[in-house]
C-alpha cells in the first residue's frame, strides 16, 4: 500500500471519528440541528474526498508550495471561515437577546409586574 493510500485512509478515519462525535453532541442537545448538518457535511466531505489526496502534491507544485504548507493553508482558511460565520451567528443572537430583554421589561412595566417585588415576596 502506498503512502498516499495510507494517508487517504487516515483522513477518512479521522473524519469518521469526528462525525461520530458530532452525532453524540447532537443527541445530547449540545449542538443544534443546523450546526449538526453543517459539521456532518464537513465530515462527509472529509470521508469522500480523502481518495483525492493524490491531487495535493501536483496542486502544491503548481502553487509553488510544499504539500504540507498547502494543507495547512487550506485548513487555516476553512477554520477562519467557520469562525467568522460563528461570530456572525453569535452577534445576531446577542442582538436578539438584547431586544428580548428590552421587550420583556416594557411588557412588565405595562402590566405593572416587578421582578424585584416578586423576589422579595418569594423570600
Amino acid at each position, binding site marked *: 500500500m502506498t503512502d498516499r493510500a495510507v494517508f487517504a485512509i487516515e483522513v477518512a478515519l479521522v473524519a469518521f471519528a469526528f462525525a461520530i462525535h458530532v452525532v453524540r453532541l447532537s443527541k445530547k442537545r449540545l449542538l443544534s440541528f443546523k450546526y449538526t448538518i453543517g459539521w456532518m457535511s464537513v465530515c462527509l466531505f472529509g470521508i469522500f474526498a480523502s481518495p483525492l489526496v493524490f491531487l495535493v502534491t501536483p496542486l502544491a507544485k503548481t502553487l509553488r508550495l510544499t504539500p504540507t504548507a498547502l494543507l495547512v493553508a487550506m485548513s487555516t482558511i476553512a477554520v477562519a471561515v467557520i469562525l467568522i460565520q460563528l461570530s456572525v451567528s453569535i452577534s445576531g443572537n446577542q442582538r436578539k437577546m*438584547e431586544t428580548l*430583554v*428590552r421587550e*420583556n*421589561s*416594557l411588557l*412588565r*412595566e405595562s402590566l405593572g409586574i*416587578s*421582578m*424585584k*417585588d416578586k423576589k*422579595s415576596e418569594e423570600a
Partner: protein
Amino acid sequence: MVIDDGSSDETSYRARAAGASVLELSMNLGVGGALQSGFNFALRHNYEAVVQIDADGQHPADEINNLVDQANATGADLVLGSRFLADSPSMYVSITRRFAMGILKAVASQACRTQISDSSSGFRLIRNPLLSHFAKSFPSHYLGDTFEALVISGRRRYKIVEIPASIADRKHGQSSASSKVAILLIFRALIVTTFGLHFQLPKKVVGGAD
C-alpha cells in the same frame, strides 16, 4: 422614568416607591441599551422628545427646561447641554483626557457643521424623528451613546444645537472608566466613526416626512 439596568440592589423598588415609572432590565445591557429601552418606552407612549440626564447628580434637573426651550426655538433634533460653555465651568479634566476630548470635539464639530464643545455630554434632548431611529438602533458601548450618536446624527444632517449647562460635583458613584481606559475607548470611538463601523441611521429628509 428610571431604568434599572440589571442592578442587584433595591433601585427599582425604591424608585417605584417614590412614584417613578420603572423599566427593569433582567440583565445588564450597558448605558446605550438602557437608553434604547427608554426611547422605546417614550415612543410607545407617544412622547415627542426625551431628555437624557446622568444619574450622578452632576446636572441640575431644573435646566431641562433650557433644553426644551432651545429645541422649540430652533427646531433642533438634538440639543446638547455643554459642560464647557457655562460661565464658570468647574469640571476638572486631566491633560491627557483634555487632549483626547479635543480630538473628539474636532471630529464632532466637523460632522455636525457647527462648533461642538462637549461631544460626550450625557445631558441632552432628543426629539422625533431622531428619537424613533435611536429606538430601533443605538450603540450600547462607552461613548457610543454620546459621541458616536452625535457624530452620526450630524453626518446624517440632523440639526444639532449646543447650549451651556452647569455642572456640579458628582453626588453618587464614580466614573465608569479610568483615564487610561477612557483614552483607549476614545480611540475606539474614533476608529468606529472614521471607518463607519457604527449603527445605521437614515439620512434626514428635509422639508418632508422622514
